[in-house]
């Protein structure tokens, strides 16, 4: 796609959309949203980038290797947090009892492990969406 308007608008929109996605991920435990929604939004911005600037440039921004690391990393991060609970409090995925910081209700730094898990999910979902799209686009042709 070689349209200057589309390219420039995309350049302007993408940072805002990504910041919005990050906002949704980080605020998942105090307002509507969370890892899935935010991750999907970030993933869509990456898809948009690939659509507008072409596959090669998109690959540079978010390489195959990075997505592979993010995919396994998301689950490993999740399991690690769960294992903290297993080791400290004798149960998998324990939250407050495992010593995660409590914070004050309604602030961003609260909810113990919930925001940590949300970050992991967000990264995972974003990378999954972009790599699924790349796989579907790459094939054949």
């Amino acid at each position, binding site marked *: 796609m070689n349209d200057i308007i589309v390219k420039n608008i995309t350049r302007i929109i993408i940072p805002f959309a990504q910041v919005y996605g990050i906002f949704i991920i980080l605020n998942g435990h105090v*307002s*509507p949203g*969370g890892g*899935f929604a935010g991750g999907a939004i970030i993933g869509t911005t990456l898809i948009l980038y690939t659509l507008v600037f072409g596959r090669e440039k998109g690959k540079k921004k978010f390489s195959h290797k990075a997505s592979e690391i993010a995919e396994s990393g998301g689950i490993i991060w999740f399991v690690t947090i769960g294992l903290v609970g297993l080791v400290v409090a004798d149960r998998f995925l324990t939250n407050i009892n495992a010593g995660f910081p409590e914070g004050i209700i309604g602030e961003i730094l609260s909810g113990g492990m919930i925001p940590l898990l949300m970050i992991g999910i967000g990264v995972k*979902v974003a990378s999954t969406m972009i790599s699924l799209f790349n*796989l579907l686009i790459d094939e*054949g042709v």
Partner: protein
Amino acid sequence: MWLDRIIENINYIGAIALFVIGLRIVVTHSNLIKRIMGINIMGTGVFLFFVAIGNVTGGVPPIVNPEVEDQLFINPIPSVLILTGIVVVVSITVYSLSLVVKIYENYKTIDQKELSKLISEENNEH
């Protein structure tokens, strides 16, 4: 009387209607992409059913505000369950779409009837 009952249960009826329409598309349509869409419609039907169970007239989303007392919240459990469900259905959709791409590459058609014809012809050749 009947109208009241229908209006009261409109979400349930809508959910069941979507479920049945989705099922019809999956079972009777011969186009593979349409069938995947049917699965998605079926899925949203089930999700709508779940959410309708959790709905409370005059309730608010379950986000606690310590300063406001005595709020009537909706039931949070169905929302959680379908948040999981939506992502699951997307994964299945993507996987079946990838199969459709491969089927088209090999058979040059995405119509179930033509596909069955091609496959039976191939089997007869051998």
